[in-house]
């Protein structure tokens, strides 16, 4: 028998442990207690997409959030037949938190620019897990609030630097 098989470390290089590490680095989950995080990491699934595949599709209510692990994906907004590429996402980008909280149709499509792998968390699973750890809810709400606030602060700072003013501000005031 191969002696290396006796080494318990071998079992630990598993997907669940990796998921746990990855989720801990996502702003939304960073402050969660380990018990809740473990369940979320366990309920995630890893998916692979070929270049050109849709990760998310505009108008669909897929009810999932994605954490990109590798590859690049292109965010696209389609309007009356016109496609507009908005930005690219890459490894460690976490996309679609809103879909974890409520059912809404996607406003954008996300298309794999290269072969892409990502971690998928579905809303139904997320809710089931949340129901088991009610103390986690305020932490999640706080994380979202901070995120929206920080995002808008940055936006305002940029506008003020460039002395450009648009009237679509105030998301943090919802």
């Amino acid at each position: 028998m191969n002696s290396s098989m006796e080494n318990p470390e071998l079992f630990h290089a598993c997907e669940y442990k990796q998921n746990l590490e990855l989720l801990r680095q996502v702003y939304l989950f960073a402050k969660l207690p380990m018990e809740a995080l473990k369940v979320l990491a366990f309920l995630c699934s890893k998916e692979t997409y070929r270049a050109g595949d849709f990760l998310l599709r505009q108008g669909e209510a897929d009810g999932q959030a994605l954490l990109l692990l590798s590859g690049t994906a292109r965010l696209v907004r389609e309007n009356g037949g016109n496609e507009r590429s908005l930005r690219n996402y890459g490894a460690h980008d976490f996309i679609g938190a809103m879909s974890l909280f409520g059912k809404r149709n996607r406003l954008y499509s996300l298309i794999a620019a290269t072969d892409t792998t990502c971690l998928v968390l579905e809303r139904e699973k997320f809710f089931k897990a949340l129901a088991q750890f009610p103390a986690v809810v305020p932490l999640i709400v706080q994380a979202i609030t901070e995120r929206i606030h920080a995002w808008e602060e940055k936006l305002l700072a940029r506008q003020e630097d460039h002395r450009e003013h648009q009237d679509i501000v105030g998301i943090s005031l919802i």
Partner: protein
Amino acid sequence: MKKKTSSRPVTERSLFSWVLSSNLKLQMALLLIIIVTVFARVVPLEMQKKIINEAIFLKKIDLLKIYCGIYLAAVLISTIFKYLTNVIQTLLGQQALADMRRAVYHHILTLPINFYRKTQPGMVVSALVTELAAAGDFVGMAIAIPVTNILTLLAFGGYLFWLHPVLAAVSLSIYPIVLILIPRLQSRVNQANKKRVDITRELSDKIGESVSGIHEIHTNGTYAIENRKYDAIVERLRKIRVTWNLYRFGVKTTNNFLNSLSPFLIFIIGGFLAISGELALGALVAFLSAQEKLYDPWKEILDFYQSYQDATVSYKRVMDYFNAAPEHLLAPEGRPPYDLDADIEVKDLSFYTESGIRLLDQVSFSLPAGKHMAVVGFSGSGKSTLALCLNQLYRYQSGQAMIGHREISTLTKADIIRNMGTVSQSPFIFEGTIEENLLYSCLALETFVDSEAAAARPSLDDMIAALQQSGIFVDVLRFGLDRHLRHEDHPDLTERIIRIRGAFKSEFGETVHDLIEFFDDGAYLYHSTVLDNIVFGTTDHPEFSGSNLSRNAYFRDYLETAGLMRPLVRLGAEVARQTVDILGDLPHEAIFFEQSPLKPDDLEIYIPLTERLKKQPLEDASDEDRERLLDAALRFSPGRHKMVALPAPLESLILEGRILFRKSVSQDHPDVFSFYNAGRYIPSETILNNILFGKMKSRHPKAQEKISQSAIQLLIRDDLLETILKLGMQFEVGANGDRLSGGQRQKLAIARIFLKAPKILIMDEATSALDNKSQARIQNLLENHWRGRSTVISIAHRLDIIKNYDYIAVMKSGKIGELGGYDELIEKKGLLYELVHGKS
């Protein structure tokens, strides 16, 4: 459903009415038995006296025999009858409890929705399950206990007086004292107990506070301060507990003391009387025995009083809690439910909440039969309230709402059920199969409508049509494909599936290649279990299948030879440890266990097992534990169960083991296993896996859809769709339908109403959990199939599906602000325009 409607509601019945309504014959038998028992209890005393006075004293052997015989007979009779009393008491009590549980449940189900808004499900559960039990037990003993004991007391007391009136009066004199003293002491006990409960709560709060604030205590080093606070409470608790216990023992001691005083009185006075020759010795003995026997009935009466108090309190609490009246009669009396015209007329309809908030304010509209109306509006505008008033879930306070010219509030539930169907926002799916849930609304018709008028049960074709219309068809097909078939039950079907397997490989093999892990002799299958990877075949021999295999001596020997035993047990330990760590504290819901090799019930075994593994090395684990761990390892499949990774060396060892296994089992047990073979059906795998001759790598909906679509094409070509669908309809949806997704639950709810095909259809945001395509399809169906057949009121959450409705009602703060056709209202640039295009 057909019940006497004139009888009093169950919640207003007294506890004693259950005694009266119980089986009278049994009650009479009980009384008779009690009288005989009491008589049989007194006889031994008299015999005791006669044995001493007449037989022993006068040395008459024959009298001794006779009296002893009578004594024995009396003891036997009283024992047997005492048992009979218990039997009857149990029968009465359990019957009463069952009757109460039924009556209260039947009553609760008819209570208005409003009642449930204020009620915790847990409260209803504990009322029906626990609290009524005390009341039921009480009904069982309500007659037997007091009658028996009072009669016994009277009989013994009478007997005492008959023996010697003065002595009797003296020995019974203690009871008035007990009656005065005990209640006073008891009230002290109660007071002390109340204080004890309060201080205990204070103590719990303090502990809770310290635990939550432990960071602060450590940071500030305030150990002594917190200890002082805590210690003070503990001291107060100690004092009150001492007081409480002393009073409790006081009650007991006083009672015992007073009761043992009477023999003393009897000895001193009776002894004197016996010496002076006024009382025969036998009579004194009988007197003493009778006096001693007073204690038990006395105590039982006191206990009975206590349980009477408890039962009345809990019974009254339950009944008061549920003391509400249904808002509508369940079924009409003296006529079948109406077959109404499907036009709806609403005039000045208003609805307020209990606190007086007006949710509907003078709503008026009329909708001719067969026309469709969409109700849209801002949130909180009263859309859903309108739907709930129309289907009788809410009772409106003023105005009129009429179906077929009859006022809804005067109709019975049966009238509504017969003519109307509703799909609610978040429909509930009950435990059972898809088929049972599909028939749920239709079967209700049978319970209301007279049997001859009952709608014929829907045919299979109708059911399939409903599944298709609601869009759950593919899901059900998918459930069917996930079923297991036994070759001998479906020999023809399995043959055909093998043929489809061939077609699938040649037609779709290329396009779905990276979604499927095909069964391949020489490769490790990450989406199959370790067991399947070793055996690479199936068996129906019980000793070689399932969890028996981990105990099977032949298989264990093989594992040792192949060098697999040790690493597999180690793998099993890791699987068990991780699974228990992640899932150990979670409720047994299907969604958590989808990706776990251990099922919820297994945790009972594996939680203590992993505890043991923490304390001792794996090598020292018991044989039984090692079997369990082996079993966990054999069920592990790395592609699905992500809590552990399969070590690469073990993987290649298993692959080598596969060849060895096949070789040795073919020699030793040639007929036990059938190995995976492209030309053979695999009964241990699902139908789908048999078609694929492999397993899907991803459970992601998109991947599933892609493969299902290909499989379905082939099923259609082979005319197997209906067969698989029938299998799929037997899928168990789980408690609350939790094995279905939100979308599937909503589709199933739509399907069951489409199957019922009501004249009036109310859709309350009925498609909100569906994807765009499904929404559009159902909208299409409403427009093309149901227009003209059914009157439809659709509370719409989205504005892009309402264009083709005959009428659109736009609601704002409880009123209908606009009513008309889509184009007409948009042109008006009023509320609908504002909703669609936003405030300008």
